[in-house]
């Protein structure tokens, strides 16, 4: 199905977003892998996460040529956009990245995920806003199915988190560019 690279700063929820995609893939019976960067860059520096959702067993867990790049900051965007496979997509948080993608052989999708989250009172949930937008644009999973996975991922002791995530997801899903 897809190899996905999510990249940004530590603290933006990159790893969480990746885990949601992998988790949905696993529950749908796909072969999946999730590999975080775990170096010193985790602490406030750049952070990224390789996600594979495939029909066949996953070979390398490290995504070097993604079908989909999700960029949450400018350094990550600049570092990785050239590696996206021809015909692939790049998702750009346009509230943090002012660049326009110059490549014509990939599709660039822009959403101000961070400011959308902030103005809606869901600061820190830009990652989930982005997930909503990714699911809508790529159709990797149906909305209902992904929402049910997202809901189930919240700890049972904190049902309010699930509610917040669903609201943030909806903002991204219904974002009209």
């Amino acid at each position, binding site marked *: 199905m897809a190899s996905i690279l999510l990249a940004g700063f530590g603290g933006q929820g990159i790893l969480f977003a990746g*885990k949601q995609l*992998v*988790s949905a893939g*696993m529950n749908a019976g796909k072969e*999946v*892998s*999730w*590999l*975080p960067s*775990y*170096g010193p860059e985790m602490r406030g520096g750049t952070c990224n996460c390789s996600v594979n959702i495939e029909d066949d*067993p*996953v*070979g*390398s*867990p*490290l995504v*070097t040529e993604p079908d989909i790049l999700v960029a949450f900051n400018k350094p990550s965007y600049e570092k990785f956009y050239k590696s996206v496979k021809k015909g692939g997509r790049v998702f750009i948080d346009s509230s943090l990245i002012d660049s326009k993608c110059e490549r014509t052989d990939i599709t660039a999708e822009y959403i101000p995920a961070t400011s959308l989250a902030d103005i809606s009172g869901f600061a820190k949930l830009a990652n989930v806003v982005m997930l909503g937008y990714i699911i809508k644009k790529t159709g990797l999973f149906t909305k209902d199915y992904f929402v049910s996975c997202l809901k189930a991922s919240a700890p049972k002791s904190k049902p309010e988190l699930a509610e917040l995530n669903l609201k943030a997801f909806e903002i991204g899903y219904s974002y009209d560019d």
Partner: protein
Amino acid sequence: MSKMLMKGNEAIAEAAIRAGCKLFFGYPITPQTELSEYMAKQMPKRGGLCLQAESEIAAINMVLGATASGARAITSSSSPGISLKSEGISYIAGSDLPCVIVNVQRGGPGLGGIQPAQSDYNQATKAPGHGDLHLIVLAPASVQEMASLTGLAFDLADQYRMPAMILADGALGQMMEPVDFEERTPRELPEKTWACCGHGNKREHNIINSLYIQPNVLEDIVKERFKRYEEVEKNEVMYEEYMCDDADIVIVAYGITARIAKSAVKEARAMGVKAGLFRCITLYPFPAKELEKLSHKVKRFVSVEMNMGQMVNDVKVATDCRVPVTHCGRTGGVIPTVKEITEEIMRLSAKKEG
């Protein structure tokens, strides 16, 4: 039971607990720490003990003490920490004690780096400590195998009274994949009549020791131990062949590199090159006989490793250098890409032999 999404490090910890291991002794180190973290959370809840020792050396000696009493015990670390444990590993082997040691390898030598590597192959298979000794060395290639081989490692260790090592790497430790802790069928194991667990004045006391001052006595004991190693070599070899039947070029690999190599084999096949993959699951015992057999029908072997070339020598010895055996890999914490391995296969296939 349904599949769970877990890190490789956590999968080892969970599998150990399910295998009846109640004792974990360790000292934190990246990229292995999630294993100790999981043990710290779970062991007290499940009737076990997780102890963070003051050092790696202390941890391995605690394992020695625990296993001498007949209990299942485990310790885990990453490359530099394993070097520290080597004294204790040798004592455990010299005392004929079972235990499981996990090495989630990182780049070396010295403190090296914290990214994945396979540069402790020689250490694990040749000299895990001083003296004539072997460890059983298992090399998982997925989070699922991190779990299933851990259960097996405990059984093998108990059956042959020797330490078993899970030789993983930072990528396998850190990555998440679905894992199914299906009901494992444990082996039937001999009773631990040698354990020092209190004799209640009902039997002779047992002594666990690795010191034998008389050379002839020590020689006999070492020879006796090597007879057990022969049994291990005869009975416990594990490997997996992929498209080797008609292959001209066979990649030999283990762990994380084996799965990357598998993708490269598929790409090479798509370009018309008859490539295959031989994946070692046990590194000791090494699948030497199986590689020897293969060496009569293939044109060359390529050992793909995340080091400067270590297992390549075992492949040469196993196949008696009947066909060319070369190394391909990255080191220092760099994971080779599918593209790099494919290019090496294509380069070698274009090369005229002789």
